[in-house]
């Protein structure tokens, strides 16, 4: 089953990381991702810009457009992994492994996928490539 592993953390804290701290965390996460990729279990991975870059569109009615994230919370949704897991236990194991690599506080929310489309984005341009 495919699981979305949603990463929540305090963006003000992760935003105060030094470049060295950031590099250490990313290198450790990449190592876990590599392992998952080699096992054929790694789907798309995304890291989101801070919620200050977010815009929220309300459905229905006037379809209000609001600056900022959908919910004001202490921890913010900072990114996600899509990972193939044989069981919930394996998903929990994987999240724990990511958590050890990332350190710090925050939480991972594990959400089994109901539907999945790999997408058709061409000439993908994002600031950071995860494949490197």
């Amino acid at each position, binding site marked *: 089953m495919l699981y979305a592993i949603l990463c929540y953390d*305090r963006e*003000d*804290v*992760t*935003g*105060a*990381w030094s470049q060295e*701290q950031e590099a*250490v*965390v990313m290198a450790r996460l990449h190592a876990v991702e590599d392992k998952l990729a080699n096992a054929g279990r790694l789907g798309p991975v995304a890291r989101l*810009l*801070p*919620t*200050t*870059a977010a*815009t929220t569109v309300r459905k229905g009615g006037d379809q209000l*457009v*609001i*600056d*900022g994230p959908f919910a*004001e919370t*202490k921890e913010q949704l900072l990114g996600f992994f899509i990972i193939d897991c044989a069981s919930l236990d394996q998903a929990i194991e994987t999240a724990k492994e990511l958590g050890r690599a*990332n*350190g*710090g*506080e925050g939480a991972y929310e594990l959400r089994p996928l109901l539907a999945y489309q790999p997408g058709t984005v061409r000439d993908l341009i*994002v*600031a*950071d490539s995860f494949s490197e």
Partner: protein
Amino acid sequence: MTDLAWIDAALTSSRPQAVGALLRWFRDLDTAEEAFQDACLRALRNWPLKGPPRDPAAWLIMVGRNAAIDQKRKGARQEPLPDEQLISNLEDAEADAAERLDGAGYRDDVLRLLFICCHPDLPATQQIPLALRVVSGLSVSQIARAFLVGEAAMEQRITRAKARIASAGVAFETPGPIERAERLGTVAAMIYLVFNEGYSAAGARRAARAPLCDEAIRLARLLLRLFQTEPEIMGLAALMLLQHARTPARFDALGAVVLLEDQDRRLWNGRMITEGLALIDKAMRHLQPGAYQVQAAIAALHVRAARAEDTDWTQIDRLYATLERFQPSPVVTLNRAVAVSKVRGPAEALAMIEPLGERLAGYFHFFGLKGALLDQLGRPEEARVCYDRAIALAATPAEAAHIRQHLDRLSGA
């Protein structure tokens, strides 16, 4: 990441909120800073053992407040408050404090803290160090290094600034909407000053001042989290991100200036560009243009061009015309003339800047541009006079070296 690294980041990111709240309680900057310092020391002892609290800022505020009250009571009445070991177990108390902090009060606390650093009685040379010390928590020695002064001199400068604030008095009542907007504008200007202290540095100062750019961007993000719907704050953050993104390409290996059109665009920081473009897009939806948004839009046009020759100079010319209305200044007109020279040729650009000669008589870039325009118009003798003047006015060896290249080429021709 190690626990200590996380704690360090948590203390840094909690600082504006915590010191801001403590300042509201104690109404004295030194007491607030000492209380925060005290709380940080306790956090370093306590968090590695008991695990960090869910809301570090709320914990630091409570512990800092108790420590300071305790300090004040010492000698008078020995009645110690519960220590932080107990407090971090009081989940309810922490949640309660966090709840209160999430209200509008917290927003005004941070804004007040930033605002007192831009007190009109303080010259910029004191505002910036004070903000870096009080809000960002940089050490005095770090700040002294950035400003190329001794540590003792910087300590004195900060102490003097604090004394001036204390004697001027600070408004602690919750500001009304108009006053809040004014504070926001003043604070935004101060943050951009911090950024420019870092961005305009060259040569040996560059390494020491580079952290100022990152710090200014962090402060702008902080402000934007508090005022999510302010297009000018989005514009300010975007402007700084888009400018700072070009930093890795702005100087060559020898430290000489590399002009925008000659920069290796692959060196630009993609992450900052992405965030900057996202923010300027958001800002422009509001249809409330301002000086930061216009400047960010100009910076966005530069980074959107894959090659220098792809730059949309027509649009940049238009944006500078808008900026001239928001922020009339000979320097803005000078910048516009660069765009005009690309769109309508050097003659028109020269005609545009010639009236500025008197006001920009001491400005390096005026003579650099005027020399270049005369050069393009095939008037080498007059160009040479301008280039000579520019070299005399150069603030850094890198600036002078850049102009000398033009002179050498003229001599060779």
